[in-house]
């Protein structure tokens, strides 16, 4: 099969914004807005693989004890074809591959609207209720509010940031009481695997800073599995809160292990593994991660959130402005010349001597 990783390999990863639903005293992985507005964020881990035009987004919601309910909104680059229970060991296996010393530590991925947001899909996985929504920032925000999500004050701007590029969101609500009834213990995670056909995968990062103040540190591990070494924008050079910890061909053993997990048959025979460590304060994360694994080496500024949809490339915009200015100038001079030429004629013809 394996014309392994056919086209633009890339991946999308994490970006999970957890918000409280109703009065939510529970702790959780990911960011949680408590009743007093405080936010706790633990490290999140996510795998985003891109193969055959489909993005596979695997994350986990960890039961961290307590009761009540909490939830999250995750921006997606497209409409998923499936949302299902993820494999049991994929994320752990990736951590073991890149951090072999830290065995046994599995930090869950947090995933981090009147009902005019369109509900595209509803799925229940264990104690998680997942809803795929389509709508603008206003619609999704009102939908979330109407369904008990308490959005932090920066949510309107952040939702706008995402909705202007892709109006698809995954809302997840986690019932900690139900989790406890199911026998889930503290630290047990519920993995979720989302499959999204898209030509333009990207990794939402700015959402990780949602609800955070300037001094809070956001930590996340983003694994990318792509057909070949990806070009990334912004480059994770360590100065922008992102650091490229691993960039190497994935070992056959790792790929075999991943492929044997539930729903991981899509994993190709060969792939490039990248691990990006996010350790940033909130103002640093004003962008997403654009990925181009096609070999062209040209990740999109739009996908990175550095340009707004409809905005012209600065150089192109400048050229167009010059052309418009030139057009007005030529038109104005032409108009004046026309008037100058017509006046004598009209004067002679219409004005009595």
């Amino acid at each position, binding site marked *: 099969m394996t014309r392994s990783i056919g086209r633009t390999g890339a991946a999308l990863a994490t970006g999970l914004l957890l918000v409280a639903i109703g009065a939510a005293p529970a702790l959780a992985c990911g960011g949680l807005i408590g009743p007093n*507005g405080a936010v706790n964020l633990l490290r999140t881990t996510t795998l985003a693989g891109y193969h055959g035009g489909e993005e596979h987004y695997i994350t986990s919601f960890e039961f961290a004890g307590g009761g009540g309910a909490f939830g999250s909104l995750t921006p997606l680059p497209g409409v998923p074809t499936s949302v299902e229970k993820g494999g049991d060991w994929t994320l752990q296996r990736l951590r073991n591959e890149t951090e072999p010393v830290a065995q046994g530590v599995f930090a869950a991925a947090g995933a981090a609207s009147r009902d005019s947001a369109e509900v595209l899909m509803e799925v229940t996985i264990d104690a998680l209720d997942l809803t795929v929504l389509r709508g603008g920032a206003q619609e999704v*925000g009102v939908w979330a*509010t109407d369904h008990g999500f308490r959005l932090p004050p920066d949510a309107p701007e952040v939702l706008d940031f995402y909705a202007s590029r892709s109006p698809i969101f995954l809302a997840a609500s986690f019932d900690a009481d139900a989790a406890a009834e199911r026998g889930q213990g503290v630290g047990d995670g519920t993995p979720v695997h989302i499959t999204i056909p898209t030509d333009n995968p990207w990794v939402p990062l700015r959402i990780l800073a949602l609800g955070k103040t300037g001094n809070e540190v956001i930590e996340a591990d983003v694994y990318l599995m792509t057909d070949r070494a990806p070009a990334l924008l912004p480059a994770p050079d360590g100065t922008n809160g992102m650091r490229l910890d691993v960039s190497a061909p994935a070992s056959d053993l790792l790929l075999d292990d991943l492929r044997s997990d539930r729903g991981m048959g899509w994993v190709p025979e060969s792939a490039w593994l990248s691990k990006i460590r996010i350790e940033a304060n909130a103002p640093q994360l004003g962008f997403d991660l654009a990925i181009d694994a096609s070999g062209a080496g040209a990740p999109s500024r739009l996908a990175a959130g550095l340009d707004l949809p409809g905005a012209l490339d600065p150089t192109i915009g400048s050229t167009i402005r010059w052309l418009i200015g030139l057009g007005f100038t030529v038109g104005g001079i032409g108009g004046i010349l026309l008037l100058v030429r017509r006046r004598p004629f009209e004067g002679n013809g219409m004005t009595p001597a």
Partner: protein
Amino acid sequence: MNRSDRRPGRLALAGGIALALGLAGIAGAWVGAPGLARPSVELTMRYSSFSSGLIEVPLGVPVTIVLRNADPIEHEWIVGDAASHQRHRTGTEPIHGARPTEASVPAGQTRSTTITFTTAGDQVFVCHLPGHEAYGMVGTLRVVPAGE
């Protein structure tokens, strides 16, 4: 038809425009005259920020504050002294509206409240929903004696 035939029509059109402009000017001046219209101030809340950080209102005159929430989340507008804001920081009232100095504005909606300020000086207006004040939803309302 030659041009001189059209001249009366053009004169009438120009006269009509001039008359309309004149009437509009008179109406505007009348509406803006002191004592004839209630002063109002409009504040828009967007991206969890007030459209103006400083508003001026006249002393001793009913002022209507129009609060337009352009966000998909609820906001509040509460004006008062330091003591009242301290109470609201730890308060538990989920909805405001009983007092004219306190208003809850649901997502995407507009509310208005009319207040007569009886003391000149500065007061602070704040959204006291969790995290909103720290995010910057704060402004100053300056009460100035009429005529200043």
